[in-house]
């Protein structure tokens, strides 16, 4: 699990490059302050990320790690997970109960 979270964070830094925000990463991962501190510290200690020109950037070692796990093109942007087959205009409101087809016949 921890490796997976490290992978997500690393993908985030690779994708966002100079436009990363720690706060945004915290929100994506649902992390609190202490958790994010530990995660960043771990990534720095493992030499996956480092400060380069005053910004946190993925190191060559970090990029290789992403490559070996075939995650070099992972995108944390939620749009990429959008369900394109979902007909947004006809979705039920959350307050409406879903009644399966021919439900009454089955009672």
């Amino acid at each position, binding site marked *: 699990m921890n490796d997976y979270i490290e992978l997500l964070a690393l993908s985030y830094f690779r994708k966002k490059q100079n436009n990363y*925000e720690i706060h945004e990463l915290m929100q994506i991962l649902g992390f609190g302050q202490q958790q994010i501190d530990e995660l960043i510290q771990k990534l720095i200690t493992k030499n996956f990320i480092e400060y380069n020109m*005053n910004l946190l950037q993925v190191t060559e070692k970090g990029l290789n790690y992403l490559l070996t796990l075939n995650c070099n093109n992972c995108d944390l942007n939620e749009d990429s997970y959008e369900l394109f087959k979902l007909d947004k205009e006809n979705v039920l409101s959350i307050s409406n109960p879903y009644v399966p087809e021919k439900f009454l016949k089955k009672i």
Partner: protein
Amino acid sequence: MRWNSNQFDNLDSKLLKFSEDFDIWFEQFPKDNKALVEILLNHFEYYSHQEVNKQLKELYSQLKENFKIEEENTIFSFIKSKDGISNSSNDYWNEFKYENNINCNLCYENINVIEGFQWKFIDNIVFVDDCIGTGNSFISFLLPNVLKFKNKNLFFVTIHAMVDGIKEIKKFGIDNDINIIIIKYRSENKAFNSDYFSNNEDAIDDVMKMSLGFKIPKNQILGYKESQSLMAFYNNTPNNTLGFFRYNTDNYVSIFPRINSKKPSWQNMKKSKNNRNNLNYLIRRNKKSE
């Protein structure tokens, strides 16, 4: 616009948007106001993420060299928002810690967890934040803990500080026996308290008229409590900045819009109740006077 360092060589997303939208934004101003906007823009400070981090590193060096702070008697913290909800301002504190490799045992998200007997070992408390506007946020933050800070050194590390805000904080420190030292990258006077215009009163009138024309609320035009600042950061624009740089309306789009996340209704209940009470009071008073 005063572009810090070599920002044009490496545009961040906000500057890229600025360069793309500039012409459309500038077109919105009446012909007579364009010169005024240009002057204000010339003195505007934009701080990219890279510039912020560079200065946070530099300011930490200054802190270590000039004040000889040691791990044994120093803690680091940040100014929490009034509602206690973490926001993008926390990133200044985060980057300050990571970039300067500060011992995590010295960093406190909440200084209230420090027990009473531990305070006598702490001489220096370092706070990190993006800017000082009126100084109100820092003073409101210190007020409940004023006894804990008595006779201690409080260092406020910040990127951009308004001169009036610094004065307020210093005065608060003197009144409460707290030695407050501001470690800043840049300090500025109010926009219309500087020498940018030959007649500041006329310039204020012009900005007021122009902004009201854009339907910017009156209390937003000169910034929070009229702090008249000219600054924006990579992650947000402080409410101290002149309204027309950051406030969007139905008929005006600003160039550095402030990010205001929508709050759930229950967080505004107290405010709504106060507003209702005030309104009822005014109605009753008006009826009596009739």
